[in-house]
């Protein structure tokens, strides 16, 4: 676009063509915006007057929990029926300022609760690599939009694996940045001590460009990390060639033996290219997902109390105000959202608070300590991204714990706030993607990009 070989308008038109062809069956987008052409023309103007940046003219998809002024946003839920964002999220305002082209909003598990994009109130999203299978979740629409070439990059969110696992299921790169790196102002909250905005892309370089463009301090997000602290954290770590593997942790979640073989093969390739691989013993990692399933529902039950049928969204009239709350929330939230709110209410209730929530907060601290201690010894922790290959649509819906286990390898990075990247690492004979995951210390995204690019070179 810089050389004028093609315009942002040409590029947007090409992507819209694919959308027309594939979105009806995939259901990756819930809405294609009507101003895509206008946005692209704005980007072309920036190329002409020399103000274009790395993001100008790039076709993005945004997950349906990121606010864009005057656009609908629903978090995949009926309870936000009719809601139109009255302001821009910080992420959307940066994208607009840099002239990125936002194609539309992508489907997701309701309120980002799920690992398969099947709990959306607006239907399932299908995996572009095999339409009988799920794309992963909760950012399944984001990953499917990129895998099907309906966007060059997708922005989703991650609370526990919600970008890395769909990236793995769709054969893409997914980056979960350090907690507090990207602003969450204007993003619909799920678990506030865990949520991060996260990109899904085809290459590591794309993820790097997006991360560097969006990672900055934002006064509108009280958990956004100030710049000086970012640099301080990053400067703690030197040479970056040592990979640790928590071997005993890998037996969790019913790991598919094909995934383990692929994982070992991937590590061998890195070893051959100069990386040192060592085994780590990280015993507390095995309870990370259990800790997550206490802390997250607790935060969910609090965050989702704002959806009450009073100020915005769906209202189902009852006989009085209390009855209106009960009916609006009972009918507005889907099954999984209700299940998690009730679970959260339980772990926070009198008599159980100490045994569950307080205990979980302490174990979380232990996991973080264990991880930071490991980083004194190694530069990366490597695991497969998910324990299973993309599963069939309809599977695991009736067994919440089986579904939750999809994120067993994701949980430690989210609980510790560390950045983590999912990288495609080959295909099965039937064409299903494998994925490898690296986790690094806080604000060491650059070392993840480095090992990621190295792996892209040796992968084939």
């Amino acid at each position, binding site marked *: 676009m810089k050389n004028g070989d093609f315009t942002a308008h040409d590029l947007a038109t090409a992507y819209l063509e694919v959308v027309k062809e594939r979105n009806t069956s995939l259901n990756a987008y819930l809405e294609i915006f009507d101003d895509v052409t206008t946005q692209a023309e704005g980007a072309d103007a920036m190329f002409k007057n020399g103000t274009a940046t790395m993001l100008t003219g790039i076709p993005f998809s945004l997950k349906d929990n990121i606010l864009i002024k005057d656009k609908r946003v629903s978090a995949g839920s009926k309870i936000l029926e009719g809601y139109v964002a009255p302001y821009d999220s910080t992420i959307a305002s940066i994208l607009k300022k840099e002239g990125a082209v936002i194609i539309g909003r992508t489907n997701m598990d309701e309120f980002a609760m799920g690992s398969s994009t099947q709990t959306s109130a607006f239907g399932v999203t299908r995996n572009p690599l095999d339409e009988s299978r799920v794309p992963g979740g909760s950012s399944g629409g984001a990953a499917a939009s990129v895998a099907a070439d309906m966007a060059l990059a997708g922005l989703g969110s991650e609370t526990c694996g919600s970008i890395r696992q769909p990236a793995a299921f769709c054969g893409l790169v997914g980056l979960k940045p350090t907690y507090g790196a990207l602003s969450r102002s204007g993003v619909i909250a799920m678990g506030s001590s865990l949520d991060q905005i996260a990109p899904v892309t085809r290459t590591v370089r794309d993820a790097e460009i997006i991360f560097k463009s969006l990672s900055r301090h934002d006064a509108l997000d009280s958990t956004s990390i100030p710049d000086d602290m970012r640099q301080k954290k990053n400067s703690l770590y030197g040479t970056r060639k040592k990979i640790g593997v928590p071997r005993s942790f890998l037996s969790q979640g019913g790991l598919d033996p094909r995934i383990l073989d692929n994982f070992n093969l991937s590590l061998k390739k890195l070893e051959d290219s100069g990386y040192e691989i060592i085994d780590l013993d990280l015993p507390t990692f095995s309870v990370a997902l*259990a800790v997550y399933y206490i802390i997250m529902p607790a935060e969910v039950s609090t965050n989702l109390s704002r959806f009450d049928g009073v100020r915005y969204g769906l209202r189902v009239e*009852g006989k009085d105000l209390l009855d209106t709350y009960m009916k609006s929330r009972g*009918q507005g939230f889907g099954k999984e959202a209700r299940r998690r709110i*009730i679970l959260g209410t339980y772990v926070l209730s009198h008599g159980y608070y100490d045994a569950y929530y307080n205990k979980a907060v302490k174990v979380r601290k232990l996991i973080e300590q264990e991880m930071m201690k490991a980083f004194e010894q190694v530069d990366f922790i490597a695991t497969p991204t998910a324990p299973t290959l993309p599963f069939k649509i309809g599977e695991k819906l009736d067994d*919440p714990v089986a579904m939750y286990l999809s994120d067993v390898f994701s949980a430690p990075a989210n609980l510790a706030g560390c950045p983590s990247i999912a990288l495609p690492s080959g295909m099965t004979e039937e064409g299903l993607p494998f994925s490898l995951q690296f986790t690094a210390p806080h604000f060491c995204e650059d070392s993840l990009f480095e090992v990621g690019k190295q792996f892209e070179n040796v992968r084939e």
Partner: protein
Amino acid sequence: MLEIKDIEKLAHLARIELPENEKEPLVHDMHSILNYIDQITSVDVSSVENELPEHRNIFREDQNTHVTGTYTKDILNLAPQNQDGFVKVKKIL
């Protein structure tokens, strides 16, 4: 052990009306989830101090950032019902 009446109590606390036919399956789901998360009880946390994290919530000074009323109309219009500059709800008592 959780029973249906406990689920009803929790649902009421969470202000969620549950359909009758979902209560029993929910008891079953909660058992399997609690059974899974109960593994944290065996972890020894005696070494963990209750300390504040290095990075904490940072609030800005509470000052007027915009003229009163700038966003009122946009935000009120999002409410299912409003009247005379207020959000309208059913009677409380």
